[in-house]
């Protein structure tokens, strides 16, 4: 496989995979159970999901390790199993893709605030990410994906944690924005310009946004990212905002709708397009088609 960053520099557009949580729920994940518990008990399920996204045409498959930092896992008393939980997830995806796609190590927020807003010291934050990312890299991921960040400082420490582990591994970093009347801001008040520049300075190779928005808002977000950074941009959109059908939440954006809109992302120069909450292998298949047809 050619190196990810070379392909992006050459102008290739890549497709990333879709949601993990909903796929796990369909396969027995209960409310209140951490998704990462599957990394200890149902590794075969992770492999199966990886295969599904691979056959849908994803170039990048993420590991089920979004909440696999010790700070997050401690909420479920699993903090002593960081190494095993991360390793098992990586090996499952590696088996599923067998070098046909990049394995991306997912790394989400710790759920804790840094001082002075919360209790976490900067050094602890770096250590927490270094521990998780170390486990991901040891197990053989091709990429680190720091995602769904709302605090630029925490994202920066995560990127630093990754860089302490490896100076060469590609690091993607994405933040989640809310649409306010004054523009797009994270919950912690980080705007897109600040995010794009801050993540780049921190040492990310690919920057962008995931979660929080459907694809139409993501087009607006991508436009701004392209304005403020020369780095490749990644966009992983939700399938819209969940709507209620009785007691069930249903994501309204269809694969076809997202594929049509994805063409706008491609023409804006977005380098990696994938899905987040509510997207399925069908969405990724449609995005694959959109990306392939844009080359013709």
């Amino acid at each position: 496989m050619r190196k990810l960053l070379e392909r992006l520099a050459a102008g290739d557009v890549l497709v990333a995979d879709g949601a993990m949580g909903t796929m796990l729920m369909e396969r027995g994940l209960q409310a209140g159970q951490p998704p990462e518990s599957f990394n200890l008990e149902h590794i075969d399920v992770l492999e199966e999901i990886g295969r599904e996204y691979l056959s849908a045409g994803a170039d990048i498959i993420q590991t089920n390790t979004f909440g696999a930092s010790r700070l997050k896992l401690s909420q479920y008393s699993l903090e002593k199993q960081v190494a095993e939980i991360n390793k098992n997830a990586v090996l499952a995806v590696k088996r599923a893709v067998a070098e046909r796609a990049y394995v991306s190590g997912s790394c989400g927020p710790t759920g804790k605030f840094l001082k002075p807003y919360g209790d976490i010291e900067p050094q602890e934050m770096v250590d927490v990410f270094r521990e998780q990312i170390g486990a991901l890299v040891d197990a053989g991921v091709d990429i680190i994906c720091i995602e769904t960040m709302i605090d630029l400082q925490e994202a920066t420490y995560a990127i630093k944690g990754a860089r302490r582990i490896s100076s060469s591994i590609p690091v993607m970093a994405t933040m989640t924005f809310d649409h306010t009347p004054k523009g797009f801001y994270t919950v912690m008040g980080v705007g897109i310009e600040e995010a794009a520049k801050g993540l780049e300075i921190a040492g990310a190779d690919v920057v962008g946004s995931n979660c929080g928005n459907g694809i139409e808002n993501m087009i607006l977000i991508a436009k701004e990212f392209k304005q403020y950074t020369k780095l490749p941009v990644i966009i992983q959109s939700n399938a819209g905002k969940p709507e209620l059908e009785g007691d069930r939440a249903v994501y309204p954006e269809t694969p076809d709708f997202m594929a049509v809109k994805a063409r706008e992302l491609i023409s804006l120069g977005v380098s990696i397009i994938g899905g987040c909450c509510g997207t399925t292998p069908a969405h990724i298949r449609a995005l694959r088609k959109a990306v392939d047809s844009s080359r013709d």
Partner: protein
Amino acid sequence: MDLLQDISLALQEGNCEKIEVLVRQALSAQVFPKDVLDRGLIAGMNVIGEKYKNHEIFLPEVLLAAKAMYKGMDVLKPLFLKSGIPTLGRVVIGTVQGDIHDIGKNLVAIMLRGAGFDVLDLGKDVPAEKFVEVAVKEEARVIGMSALLTTTMSAMKEVVERLKKRGLDGKIKTIIGGAPVSADYARHIGADAYGYDSVNAVEWIRKLTAQS
């Protein structure tokens, strides 16, 4: 008079040290503790709430202001020992069972306390029966429930149904919030209100407690 204004400003800046000094100063200048609370701390939090609602400030500023507010309240508490800090009523809140996401719920607790409510925060992953049990025992007027996950929001329905079963619907009001829920969902499960953000939740709880 200016001292109260200064307390409000120090709170808005999230300056804990300054708050402590100013509150003590106010008290030794014979300002009524109730005035320090209402026209200093709560007045400051009202400004914070308003600015947050208008996206002029974000979560970090609110968290710092809350720390300052708690600092100020700690100084006041001993003076209200007999009667307790005067409140607009007691609210039990928590994130529902199966959900450990508590940023939104914590923010509502901050805004409620900042508005002068007495908040019993049950934390996260709170079973339905616990919401009801504590609300009854502690004579709360409102139960506030939060969920971030689409899979856990149905737990809110159970709380509403348990209240109904015990004949407490109408007596103990319910309000829900969180990314996956909506006013429609509140109606659907029979909750009394839906707060679309923390400030809106406080506005609703004011209305709900004024009715009963």
